[in-house]
């Protein structure tokens, strides 16, 4: 067993590093840059029942130590993901991938998950009940414990793969939502999705983003992520996948100490496409510096 190994819902990861959904496409753009098999796994672009173009542009705004996006779940739809994207991915990635799923109705989530359940390449289903950039779905399921539990139950019925529910930080009590998902059968919780944010252009006196608001991510949100991972990990027994502004090996260790079993890296991939590879390479030296033998032993080390 290597020093970086962790176990996520019954599947061994060589290391805990997972590029987050929406920042890594379906993998192959990054496979041109480095061998993506060095990753623990990655979470592919949020996939819905039907193809989506997403929101009008501009979709991106810069912030201090971060960015706002309002892409709005652009994706080719689950049929094409299964018939085109996954075969393409198979040529450059030989590990189990995390399938990220979004929807606008409980039935949509179940439909998409059922299709992806049949794919051997898929190891985990990460169910996004927290997208801030779509109307009438996405985040609305993740801001209410009953709705989040309902999605969880519907998905669990159609799959035998581990189901990880991805939660929004834009709530008053994230712990109650995480617990509701756990009670409904979730195998893991991932958090945090982006924080709802907004920027205004002083020259045009209009919002920078066409959709006005979007999801704020990047290193600025890391302390919020650490806090919420800590709160949730101390309240549930299932594994927690931590994310939100992670951009270094030190950040990985910190969020694991807060309770994360595995760690997703999001916005940082867009700025430094090699960051996940570099974090993995840097982890042993940083672990040595802080007297850590194995990453698995520090999970939730802070009480």
């Amino acid at each position, binding site marked *: 067993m290597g020093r970086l190994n962790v176990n996520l819902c019954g599947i061994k990861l060589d290391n805990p590093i997972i590029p987050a959904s929406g920042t*890594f496409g379906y993998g192959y753009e990054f496979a041109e840059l480095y061998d993506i098999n060095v990753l623990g796994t990655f979470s592919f*672009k949020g996939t819905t029942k039907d193809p989506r173009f997403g929101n009008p542009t501009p*979709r991106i705004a*810069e912030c201090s130590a971060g960015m706002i996006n309002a892409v709005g779940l652009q994706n080719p739809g689950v049929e094409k993901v299964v018939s085109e994207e996954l075969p393409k991915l198979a040529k450059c990635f030989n590990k189990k991938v995390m399938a990220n799923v979004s929807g606008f109705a409980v039935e949509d989530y179940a439909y998409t998950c059922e299709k992806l359940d049949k794919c051997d390449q898929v190891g985990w289903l990460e169910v996004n009940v927290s997208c801030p950039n779509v109307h009438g779905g996405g985040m609305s399921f993740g801001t209410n414990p009953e709705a989040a539990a309902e999605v969880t139950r519907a998905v669990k019925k159609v799959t035998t793969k581990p189901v990880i529910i991805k939660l929004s930080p834009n709530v008053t009590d994230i712990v109650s939502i995480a617990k509701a998902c756990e009670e409904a059968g979730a195998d893991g919780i991932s958090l945090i999705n982006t924080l709802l944010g907004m920027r205004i252009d002083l020259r045009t006196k209009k919002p920078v983003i066409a959709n006005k608001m979007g999801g704020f991510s990047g290193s600025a949100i890391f302390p919020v992520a650490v806090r919420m991972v800590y709160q949730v990990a101390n309240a549930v027994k299932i594994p927690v996948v931590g994310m939100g502004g992670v951009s270094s090996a030190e950040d990985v260790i910190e969020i694991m100490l807060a309770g994360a079993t595995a760690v997703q890296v999001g916005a940082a991939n867009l*700025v*430094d*496409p090699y960051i996940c590879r570099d974090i993995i390479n840097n982890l042993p030296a940083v672990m040595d510096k802080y007297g850590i033998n194995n990453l698995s032993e520090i999970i939730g080390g802070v009480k």
Partner: protein
Amino acid sequence: MKQGFYKITENTALTDTVFKMVLEGDVSDIKNSGEFINIKLDGKYLRRPISVCDVSDNTVTIIYKVVGVGTEQMSKMPLGTMLDVLVGLGNGYDTSKSGDKPLLLGGGVGVPPLYNLAKRLISQGKKVSVILGFNEKDEIFYEKEFKDLGAEVFVTTVDGSYGTKGFVTDVMQNIDYTYFYTCGPEPMLKAIYKASTTSGQMSFEERMGCGFGACMGCSCKTLTGYKRICKDGPVMEKEEILWED
């Protein structure tokens, strides 16, 4: 695409707000005219995508306009500064379709990518005409550089303070051309789209997240499907363009 560190060997003002920067380093991944590079700046989260004006064995030249805090920061960088840059981004122009008399039309800071393109087309033995459009005389840059390449150069200014008064399309109609290439603000691209009598290629701009096709921040709809301006573009064929408004 390649990530590397590049040394600033030139950073000079061409006009009040437009600067030329030369970066030295590995440029082997820059394959086509019309590509762009993406520059990381201290204290800024997102990189700055800037089109490639010219490339040599070990340098890449960019021309940028100071429009915000990032480009202002760039304009003050001393020679010798090392920059973290992603190079080899975007598709670039396809010169194989140009015919023997291509016409290049640039507007403002849309002019720079046409410089390497003109050089490339001329080296292929083609007769290149260039129309450079600016608002006023003080904004003009690179007229001489295009002439020195051997291109036939026309300049237009909106206020008539230099060259032909009006827009690039006012000159376009009097030129005999086989194909066109353009880069500039969207209203100009639309006007060229309408005025052109041949096929052509247009380079588009959009706010980008990553610049290499991962984030879907700069998507657009085309007649041939959804495209990412950064990865499937920035250059689009006239026939695939879908104007949304």
